[in-house]
C-alpha cells in the first residue's frame, strides 16, 4: 500500500535519530508529510528515493568538524558504488543542499550528519576490504574486533541490512559479488554502530510487544514482497538474491515497526451501502472507503439481492477492496470471501473461485473462524478435477487433519476421489446426487469426462446391447428406478439420447421397441466432440461476450 521507496525514506530518516525523542519527533513529522502527500495525491508520484530528508527535529547535537564528516560521506558514496552504477546516489540530495544553506544554520547540518558519525567506522572497514576476495578475512576482522561489544539485537542490524538491500534492489543488475561485499560490510558496520546505543534495550522491549503487530503486518508485507521481486529481477539471481529479498521482507516489517503505520491506514467514512468496483490507481480517499459496519450491511445487501452474478461479483469485489485497504482481516472478511466463492462456484466462474479460495486458505491459517470443512472439501475436489498430477493429490490428501476426515463434506470429497481414480462411474454419479453444499458444481466440471469414460468402458465390456434407460440411470441423467417423477425421467432420457448421439453412439431398437445401444459398433464409433464453447484462443472463460450473454442466475 505504501510505496517501497517511502519505507526506505522512513528508514533513512529514523536511522539518523540518536534517541527516542528524536525518533518520536521524526515520526510525527513524517506522519504529517505522508498524510499531506496522500491527500494531494503525490504519495505514489514522488520519488522518495531522492526526496531530501527533512531536518532533524531537536537539532542539538555533537559538534563535528564538517569537513571531517563530509569526506566520509563522499568516500562512502564512491565506495558503495561500483563504476557501473548510476551516478545519482541516495546520499546526494544532502550534499546538494549543503552549499545552499546559510552558514548560520551550520548546526542544522551537522545535526544531519551526526547520524553519519557511525558511518566513519563503516568507511574504515570498507577500506580494509579492498577486494572482494577479502570478504572472509574482512568479516573475520570485524567480528574478532567486536567480539566484546556484542549487544547485537536483531532489529538494528537488520535495519542496516535493509538499507543495503534497498540499495541492491534498486540498482538492478550488478554483480552478486559486490552485493555480497556491500551487504556484509554494511551489515557489520551497522552492527557495530548500533551495538552500543543504550536505547536499544528499550526499543527491543517495545519491539517484542509488537510481535502480534508483526502478524497483522503480514498482509502488508506480502505486498512488499512482490514489489521487491519486481525491482531488479531479484529472483533471477541465485542464493544471494533469495536472502536479500527475504531480509528486506523481514527487516522491513520489523525495522519500520516503530513507525506507526496503523495511524496511516485508511479509515473509511463512506456510508454508501452500494458501491461499484474500481481498481485503485493511487491511495484511496477515505471518503470513498466504507467502514466495517457499512460493509456488513453491504454484504447483507448482496446476499439478499436478486440481481445477476455480474452485479454481485462487482459489489463483492469492491467490498473486498475496502476490506483490504483498511486491513480488516476478521470474521467479516471470511464471510465475504466465502460468499463470493460460493457465488463463483454456482455460476462456474473458476478463476474468481480460485482467488477467493486461496485468500480463504490464508485467512483460515490465521485462525479466523469460518466454514473450514466445506472449503476443504471444495479444495480437494478441485485438485481431483483439475490436476492430473498424482503428487498434488497425494499431498492434499496427506494434509487433511483427522478432524477433517470425519466431516461429511470432506468424506464425500474423498469418496469422489476414490471413484474418479478407479473409474467407478456408478459410484461417481451416486455421489453426484448426494453431493453436499456446492460440491455438485465442482463435480459438474468432471461429469462430461466421467460419462465419456463410462461409455467407453461399457461399450468394450457389454455385449450385445445395453438399454439406453440403464445408461441414463447409471450416468445420472435420470434418477433411480424408485424415485423421481416420470416426466423428469423422460426428459433425462431424452437428454441422454442426445448426449449419446453427440458422442457417436450407435443405436438399435430391440424387439420390444426399447432403445438399445449397439455396443460393438459403439465401441469403434465413440468419440469426444469439441466443446461447444470452444474459443479461438482456447480459454472459454476469457470470451467476455460469451460470458455476458450466458444466462445468469
Amino acid at each position, binding site marked *: 500500500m505504501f510505496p517501497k521507496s517511502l519505507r526506505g525514506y522512513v528508514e533513512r530518516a529514523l536511522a539518523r535519530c540518536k534517541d527516542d525523542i528524536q525518533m518520536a519527533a521524526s515520526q510525527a513529522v513524517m506522519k504529517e508529510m505522508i498524510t499531506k502527500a496522500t491527500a494531494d495525491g503525490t504519495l505514489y508520484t514522488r520519488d522518495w528515493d531522492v526526496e531530501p530528508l527533512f531536518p532533524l527535529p531537536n537539532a542539538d547535537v555533537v559538534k563535528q568538524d564538517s569537513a571531517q564528516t563530509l569526506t566520509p560521506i563522499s568516500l562512502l558514496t564512491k565506495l558503495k558504488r561500483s563504476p557501473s552504477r548510476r551516478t545519482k546516489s541516495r546520499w546526494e540530495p544532502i550534499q546538494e543542499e549543503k552549499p545552499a544553506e546559510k552558514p548560520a544554520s551550520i548546526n542544522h547540518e551537522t545535526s544531519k550528519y551526526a547520524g553519519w558519525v557511525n558511518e566513519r567506522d563503516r568507511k574504515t572497514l570498507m577500506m580494509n576490504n579492498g577486494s572482494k576476495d577479502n*570478504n*572472509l578475512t574482512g*568479516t*573475520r576482522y570485524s*567480528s574478532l574486533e567486536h*567480539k566484546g561489544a*556484542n549487544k*547485537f*539485537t*536483531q532489529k538494528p*542490524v*537488520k535495519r542496516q541490512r535493509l538499507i543495503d538491500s534497498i540499495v541492491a534492489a534498486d540498482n538492478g543488475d550488478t554483480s552478486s559479488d559486490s552485493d*555480497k561485499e556491500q*551487504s*556484509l560490510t554494511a*551489515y557489520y558496520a551497522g*552492527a557495530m554502530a548500533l*551495538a552500543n546505543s543504550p536505547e536499544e534495550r528499550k526499543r527491543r522491549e517495545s519491539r517484542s510487544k509488537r510481535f502480534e503487530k508483526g502478524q497483522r503486518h503480514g498482509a502488508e508485507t506480502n505486498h512488499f514482497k512482490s514489489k521487491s521481486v519486481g525491482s531488479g529481477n531479484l529472483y533471477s539471481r*541465485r*542464493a*544471494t538474491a*533469495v*536472502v536479500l529479498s*527475504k531480509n528486506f521482507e*523481514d527487516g522491513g516489517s520489523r525495522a519500520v515497526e516503530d513507525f506507526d503505520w496503523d495511524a496511516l491506514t485508511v479509515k473509511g467514512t463512506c456510508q454508501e451501502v452500494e458501491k461499484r468496483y474500481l481498481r485503485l490507481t493511487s491511495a484511496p480517499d477515505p471518503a470513498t472507503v466504507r467502514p466495517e459496519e457499512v460493509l456488513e450491511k453491504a454484504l447483507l445487501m448482496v446476499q439478499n439481492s436478486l440481481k445477476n452474478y455480474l452485479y454481485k461479483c462487482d459489489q463483492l469485489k469492491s467490498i473486498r477492496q475496502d476490506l483490504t485497504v483498511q486491513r480488516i482481516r476478521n470474521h467479516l472478511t471470511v464471510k465475504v470471501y466465502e460468499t463470493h466463492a460460493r457465488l463463483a462456484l454456482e455460476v462456474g466462474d473458476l478463476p474468481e473461485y480460485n482467488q477467493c479460495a486461496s485468500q480463504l486458505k490464508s485467512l483460515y491459517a490465521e485462525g479466523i473462524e469460518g466454514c473450514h470443512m466445506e472449503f476443504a472439501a471444495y479444495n480437494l475436489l478441485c485438485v481431483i478435477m483439475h490436476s492430473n498430477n*498424482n*503428487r498434488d*493429490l*497425494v*499431498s492434499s*490428501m*496427506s494434509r487433511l487433519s483427522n478432524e477433517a476426515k470425519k466431516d461429511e463434506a470432506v468424506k464425500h470429497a474423498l469418496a469422489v476421489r*476414490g471413484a474418479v*481414480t*478407479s*473409474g*467407478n*462411474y*456408478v*459410484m461417481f454419479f451416486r455421489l453426484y446426487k448426494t453431493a453436499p453444499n456446492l460440491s455438485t458444481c465442482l463435480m459438474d466440471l468432471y461429469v462430461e469426462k466421467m460419462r465419456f469414460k463410462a461409455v*467407453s*468402458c*461399457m461399450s*468394450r*465390456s*457389454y*455385449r*450385445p*446391447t*445395453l*438399454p439406453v434407460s*440403464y445408461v441414463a440411470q*447409471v450416468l445420472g441423467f435420470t434418477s433411480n428406478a424408485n424415485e423421481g417423477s416420470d416426466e423428469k425421467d423422460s426428459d433425462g432420457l431424452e437428454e441422454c439420447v442426445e448426449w449419446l448421439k453427440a458422442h457417436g453412439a450407435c443405436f438399435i431398437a430391440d424387439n420390444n421397441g426399447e432403445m438399445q445401444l449397439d455396443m460393438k459398433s459403439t465401441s469403434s464409433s465413440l468419440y469426444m466432440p469439441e466443446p461447444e464453447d470452444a474459443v479461438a484462443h482456447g480459454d472459454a472463460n476469457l470470451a467476455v461476450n460469451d460470458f455476458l450473454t450466458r444466462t445468469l442466475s
Partner: protein
Amino acid sequence: MAYVSMGEAHHRITEYLNRFSDAVSYQDGASLKNLLSLSSNSPSLISLADALAVFHDSNRLFKQSDKFSQLSEIADRELTSNGKLPEKLKAAGSFLMKVFGVLAGKGTKRVGALYVTCQLFKIYFKLGTVHLCRSVIRSIETARIFDFEEFPKRDKVTYMYYTGRLEVFNENFPAADNKLSYALKHCNPQSEANIRMILKYLIPVKLSIGILPKDWLLEKYNLVEYKNVVEALKRGDLRLLRHALQEHEDRFLRSGVYLVLEKLELQVYQRLIKKIYIIQKQKDPNKAHQLKLEIIVKALKWLEMDMDLDEVECIVAILIYKNLVKGYFAHKSKVVVLSKQDPFPKLNGKPVNS
C-alpha cells in the same frame, strides 16, 4: 532456546566455518566430526557460499555441499521453530544449481556433476518442488558432455533411485521398475538402510506389474506394512487390502505410494473372481465360464463389502475393459461370460492399462 541476535549468530557461524575450513584443509577428520555434530542457529547463506567458493578442490566441495544441505536443513528447522519461513533449503537448492552449472562446464570436474545432481534431488524432494528435477535430469541425460558410465557407482545408484521415484509418481511403472531394479542391483549389499529405501518404492511397482515379494524379504528389511497388501493380493481379499491401506494411510501418503497401492484393488477383484471361477469349474466344468453376477455380490458380502448389483456390475465392466478379465457381460441376464481360453490373463510384467 536462548535468544541470540542475528549478529551474534552470524559471528558464530563465521567462526564455525573458519574452523570447518581449517579442519578440511588439514584433513583433520576428528575436529570435522565435532564441528558437524554442532547444531547451529540460523546460518547466513552468503557466508557459507563464500566459504565454499574459496575451495577449488572438487572433493572438498562435494563434502561441503553435502554438509551444506544438511546444515540448511537444520537451519530451516530452526527457522520454522522460530516462526519464520524455511527459505534456507530453497536457497541451498539454487546455490547447488549454480555449482552444477560450474561443474558442467569444466572438463575434469564433470564426474562431480552427478553427485551434485543427487544433492539437488534430495533437496527438491524434501521441499516438494519435484518438478525442478526435470531440468537437471535433462542436462544429465541428453547433453553429450556427460557419459553416464563415467560416473562413480554410488552416484549412479542414487541417481537411479531418485529418477525411479519420479517415475513412480508419474505412474510409469515399466520405467520405474527398470531404474529401481538397477539401483537395487548395484547397491552396496552392506548398506541395508539404502536397500530398504529402494525396496520401499520398488515393491509397489512390482506389485503393480504382478510380481509379489517373498515374506522373508519384507521381514528382513522391515517393510511389514506391505505384508497385508501382499496377502490380500494372494487371497483376493478386498477387505484386507482396504484395511491395510487405512492402517498405514499416513505412511503411504507421505511416501507417495498410496495411489499406487490403491490401484491394486482391481487385481484383488480379479483374484477373487478367479477363485469363484475355479470353484465353479470344479463343480460343473461345462457351465463354469458363465458367472452369475449375484454370486460375486454374495462373495463380496461375505467379505463384509456391501456392494449392490449396479456397483458390482460396474466393477466387472471395468475389469473387462482393462483386460483383467477376458469375456463380456450380458446385461439382461446379469451374467459374465468368460472366454474359454485364459479368462484371467496374468499381468506378465505389464501394468494394468488405464
